[in-house]
């Protein structure tokens, strides 16, 4: 049984129609001894990707794909990396994006797929001044 209802799918499909650039979701999971939420993350991404043909899911093995882990700075699993046309958007998700976590995932996919930044012009000007690495972690829960 799917995680998304038919009505959820219809609404999402409408929103995702704005995507004009391919979005890849790299999913890092560990098959043996991995987190129990890995399969849930896989299902969520699969159902999301099924709603728009510009969204694809690329599976990465957390244990074996060490080069990719290093390239994207992945230290835990399940982890999701959002790519726009193959390029890193530096947007990541740790854990299965269910419940309230699902909305930020959809927003990240829309941002990657449309390139439309929703930040205020002043905010964008301030952010342009950042010239050193900035790591932002946002902790949230599904419920």
């Amino acid at each position, binding site marked *: 049984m799917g995680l998304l209802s038919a009505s959820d799918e219809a609404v999402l499909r409408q929103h995702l129609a704005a995507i004009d650039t391919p979005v890849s979701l790299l999913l890092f999971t560990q098959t043996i001894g991995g987190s129990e939420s890995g399969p849930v993350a896989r299902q969520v991404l699969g159902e999301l990707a099924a709603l728009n043909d510009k969204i694809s899911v690329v599976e990465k093995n957390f244990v074996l794909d060490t080069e990719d882990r290093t390239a994207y700075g992945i230290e835990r699993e399940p982890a999701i990396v959002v790519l726009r046309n193959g390029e890193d958007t530096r*947007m*990541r998700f740790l854990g299965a994006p269910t419940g309230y976590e699902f909305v930020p995932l959809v927003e990240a996919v829309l941002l*990657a797929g449309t390139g439309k*930044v929703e930040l205020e012009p002043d905010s964008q000007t301030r952010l342009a*001044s950042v010239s050193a690495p*900035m790591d*932002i972690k946002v*902790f949230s829960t599904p419920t």
Partner: protein
Amino acid sequence: MAFSNRHITATSVEATEFVDLSRKFRVTGVPKTIVNDRIEILGAVPEPEFIETALQTTEEPKT
């Protein structure tokens, strides 16, 4: 923010799943944002305030 500047990386962390990280950054309520492992932003704050607080990490420490 991450999309707007190539120096910024943003990770959404499921707090109950990564208990080690939640403990490390003393997450007792959500949302809680940690910038460069030292600046804390509690709750959902207005965008200008969020950005100003986050940018404190890029400023030189006062001597």
